[in-house]
Every structure is written in structure tokens, then in C-alpha cells.
């Protein structure tokens, strides 16, 4: 398909976009750049594996839990645990410098998340990543794997 790119192009695109983001003067982007680089193997020829590692890092960075996600998790808990029906939040108690601090999880989660990946986009990324990692663990005499990212196993 016209808008499909190969693993080596995925790597070029990520390097290019992250370099541009760094040039825009936003220093924290360096953290992402380092994380993407660190995730890759030192196998120079394994472009599929490198692209999968880079995409997995982006997926991890971009996965933000919102208040809606918290509602879903609390709903799961309420279904399984007797006594948790009607629970709307989780508070965490810790010691501050002068007194006990109580933090509401809901108050510290965003209401909405911009640029959130759709279910289909996430499935596409996870399929690509899983296939590439499976190929990496095959020996040279094993059957070749599929040549495109399918659904996650």
C-alpha cells in the first residue's frame, strides 16, 4: 500500500522527527531520543527488530491513563470484589515533610488525552512489534515469519 513504510524507513522517520523536536528547543525530548536508542539491539542488520523496539518505546511513552481509564479499572474491580461497588477513586497515603499527605489518584489523572492512539492503531503497532520480536527469536533454519504486522497473538 502507498502509505506503508518499511522498517528502515520507520527508523529514519523516528530519528528525523525526534531530531526536529529537539531542535525546537524542548529539552525533555532528549529523554525520548535516548529511550528509543537504548531499546534497540546492537544487531546492525536487524531493522525489523530495531523498528519494533523503537515503536514499542513510543507506545509505552504515549500510553497515558486518563480518568476514563480509571473508571474502567474501578469498574473491573467492582465486578470482581464484593464491597467495591460505588468506589470512584483511590487515595494514597504517604508521609510528607511535615505531615501525612493524602493524594487522590483521580485528581492527578487527565480528563482527556490528546493524540491518543485508536484501538486499531494500537493493534497495528502491537502486531508489528510482536511479529518482529518473534522473528528475532527464530534460528536461521526456522520457517520465516509473516512479512507484515498482523494482529497480536
Amino acid at each position, binding site marked *: *500500500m502507498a*502509505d*506503508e*513504510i518499511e*522498517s*528502515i*524507513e520507520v527508523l529514519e*522517520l*523516528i530519528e528525523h*522527527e525526534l531530531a526536529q*523536536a529537539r531542535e525546537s528547543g524542548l529539552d525533555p525530548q532528549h*529523554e525520548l531520543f535516548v*529511550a528509543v536508542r537504548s531499546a534497540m539491539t546492537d544487531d546492525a542488520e536487524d531493522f525489523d527488530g530495531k*523498528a*519494533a*523496539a523503537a*515503536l*514499542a*518505546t*513510543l*507506545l*509505552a511513552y*504515549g500510553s*497515558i*491513563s486518563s480518568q476514563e*481509564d*480509571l473508571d474502567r*479499572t474501578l469498574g*473491573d*474491580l467492582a465486578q*470482581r*470484589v*464484593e*464491597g*467495591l461497588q460505588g*468506589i470512584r*477513586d*483511590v*487515595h*494514597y*497515603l*504517604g508521609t510528607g515533610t511535615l505531615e501525612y499527605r*493524602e*493524594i*487522590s*489518584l483521580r485528581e*492527578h*489523572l*487527565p480528563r482527556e488525552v*490528546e*493524540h*491518543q*492512539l485508536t484501538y486499531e492503531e494500537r493493534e*497495528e503497532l502491537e502486531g*508489528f512489534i*510482536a511479529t518482529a*520480536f518473534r522473528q*528475532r527469536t527464530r534460528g536461521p533454519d526456522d520457517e520465516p515469519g509473516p512479512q*507484515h*504486522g498482523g494482529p497480536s497473538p
Partner: protein
Amino acid sequence: MMTIRKATVLKALQAAIDRVKNASASSCYAQGKAFELKVLARLLSDLRLHRYTLTCTPKAKNHLTFGGAPCRPNGAGHDCIHVRKGTENYEFWVSVQFTTLSYGLGAKGLSPTHSDLHEIDVGLFEPLTGPAYPSLKQVAFAASCKAGAWSKMFAREALGLRRELGLLAEPVTSRATWFVDAVPASPAIPLALFSGDPNCTTYRGSLEKLGLYVHYLKAN
């Protein structure tokens, strides 16, 4: 060579860059706790499949209360989840510290401090009464939770915790058969490491030979 849609890669890049731009100390803490809660929900789901009964009596009407940092069992202030089946009786606690294997080997009556204690992010214990730190004898299952990007450091850290949870041994029946049948450790406490980064899946396999089970769990 494999292929993927360029538009999907660009959207993943944008989402990741947004996250880094907008990250603050409190939001990182909350994201970690949200992931930890998801791990708890996943473990409770596994227990229900194994026909355990799960109950909780929250101290507040509308919210759960957990330890927000490494802590003692606090029955008066924190909530726990009771797990029962037949004669089996356990409790899930968040962020409770246990007294380590090395402390047990060399304590000689001294109170545990610093390196004698390690936190279990989500831990299943025999019923805990009072504020004393639980010992290894009371730990049935331990999980470490890592939101955000995977780092090899997580595996190294978990291996350190693994060491303090028991000695390497021939596999024997697990203390948490609902999670894994046998564990190569004495005592046979399984240690799970949950990450929200698919890169962690490349660490599955050999670490299980040491009783460390790495799992990918979608963060949202």
C-alpha cells in the same frame, strides 16, 4: 522487511512527544499508581477464574485507601483485599515492605532497617495483624509494576528483589498456583514484573528459570 502505515507511526510519535512535553512529577506518580491498580485488577481477575472469593470493606465510602510509599501494614488506615478459597486465606496489600532473606539469615534480634526491608508493589500475604513488617513466611506472591518505557534496569532491580525473596532451588509447588504451578525458589514465592512497554516481552523466558515472570500489560 516488514511494513507498517506511516500515519500510525507519526501518530505514535506525536503521542509520545506530547507525553514528554506534559510530564510533571505528580503526573508521573499518578501514571505509575494507575498502572499498579491495573495490575491489581488483572491479578484479581486471575484469582476469580480460579474460583477465589474476593472481598473488601473500604474505610471510606467512595474511595479505596492504599499506602502511597513503602510502608508497614496499616490495618487502621489502609485497605486490603481479602482472598479466600476453602482453608486458604490471604490479603492483597499495596506498597507493604517485607523483611528480606538476608535479614532472616543475619538479624540476630536486631530491628529491621533500610536494606533489611523491601517494598512489594502489589503483594499477596497471609493475613497481617498489627504493624509488624511481614516476613518471607507470610509472603505468597509478589508483583513489581513499571509504567512507562522499559529499561534493562527494571530486570536487574527485580533480580535483586528475587534474590531477597528466596534461594534458587529445584522447582517446587508454588505458593500461588493460580499464577504459576511451580517456582524454582525456596520458599516458592513467584515474583512477577509487569511493564506497560512491549519491549519487556524480549526479557521473557530465561528469567523464569530464576522465578522471575515478566509480563506486558497495556497501560490503557
